[in-house]
């Protein structure tokens, strides 16, 4: 059995992997939770759990999906613990304004705010596809959906996002 962190380099390689992946993991957690502080906590907790479970990572090339799966589970746990009742998107946008702001591009900040307004079931596959480079099949496996369902969600995500951003949607197809 292949052990990507075997031998004397085990800890160093795992540290290096965490360093490399952390920025994207934090971004993924942020778009999942729409809460910067929560995202940072989820990522830290994820790294602790990952360290403890590193023997289950058999292929270093699969590290990113492995970490993302842990993040999703960890976020779900946090969500269950905190039992959020209602979410006011305007409040979320205002709270995360420092993260959503784009100093030289107001349109980018508006696009980020529009992403906040997407339903979770549309935003998550979109982030996996665009930010993480996942294929439809990989998203389907991660989210436990069929490929057709993933494509439908991605289609609806972009369609809604384009409307929210005031894009020219005259040529957009009907569902």
């Amino acid at each position: 059995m292949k052990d990507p962190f075997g031998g004397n380099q085990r800890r160093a390689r795992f540290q290096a992997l965490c360093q490399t992946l952390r920025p994207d993991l934090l971004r993924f957690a942020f778009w999942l939770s729409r809460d910067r502080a929560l995202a940072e906590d989820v990522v830290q907790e994820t790294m602790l759990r990952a360290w403890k479970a590193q023997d289950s990572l058999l292929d270093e090339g699969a590290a990113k999906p492995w970490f993302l799966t842990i993040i999703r589970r960890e976020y779900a746990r946090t969500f269950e613990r905190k039992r959020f009742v209602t979410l006011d998107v305007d409040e979320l946008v205002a709270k995360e304004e420092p993260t959503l702001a784009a100093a030289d591009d107001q349109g980018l900040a508006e696009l980020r705010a529009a992403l906040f307004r997407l339903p979770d079931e549309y935003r998550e596959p979109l982030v996996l596809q665009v930010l993480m480079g996942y294929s439809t099949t990989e998203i389907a496996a991660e989210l436990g959906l069929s490929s057709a369902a993933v494509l439908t969600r991605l289609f609806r995500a972009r369609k809604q996002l384009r409307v929210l951003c005031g894009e020219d949607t005259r040529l957009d197809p009907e569902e």
Partner: protein
Amino acid sequence: MMDCGQYRRSILADPHDDDAQMRLHVAGCHDCTAYTEQLLRFESRLDRALRVAAEVEDNRSPAVPPAAQAQAARARRLPRRWFAAAASVLLAAVVAGSLWLAAPGPSLAADVVSHMAGEPGAWARTDIPVPQPKLDKVLSEAHVRLRANAGLVSYASSCLFRGHVVPHLVVQTEAGPVTVMVLTHESSRTRVRFDEHGYRGVIVPIPGHGSLAVLERGPATDLEAVESVAARVQSAIDWTT
């Protein structure tokens, strides 16, 4: 035969889909070509929008991350050796994460990755080489020649990158297409690996000639394979100035 509605539903779900039927449709449809260009511009902005800053906030001590504080009580119940190892991972991740983002290399890497979003067609897996005259023209603009041992080059384009025209090449490997950008204007003092937004790669400093950016896309890419291509391409380049 795919119609416009089918094409646009497909491209809206995955703007980088390289399906043969979609290529066939868009090649003969002016409206869908325009639609695709508009969508890819939006996609490029979407990619930028998702890349929020990922550095640690200033008001948080990197030495004692909040989650580590929350873990303190639990950690006391854990074996001391395990905690020491985990804490070192956290500390290294937080500190190095900050350094990683502050270093000059990643911003160059981020720009390279951002550039990729604008040329999805370059990533096709193929065994058809780019016509030699096209490759020669692209390389000559950067005062570069490429020997055959670089591998099969399937794509070559002169791209505007950070205010300079640079060669953007795609080399086919057994593991798939690997993109190489010859950045003669971008000096880099150290070799920098990156993993951002689905792209993994390396910036290789070339003393006196700028740097090479070599990258693959997809979550299962092998950075060692990317390094191997980088070494091969570097050895195959002749600098003509």
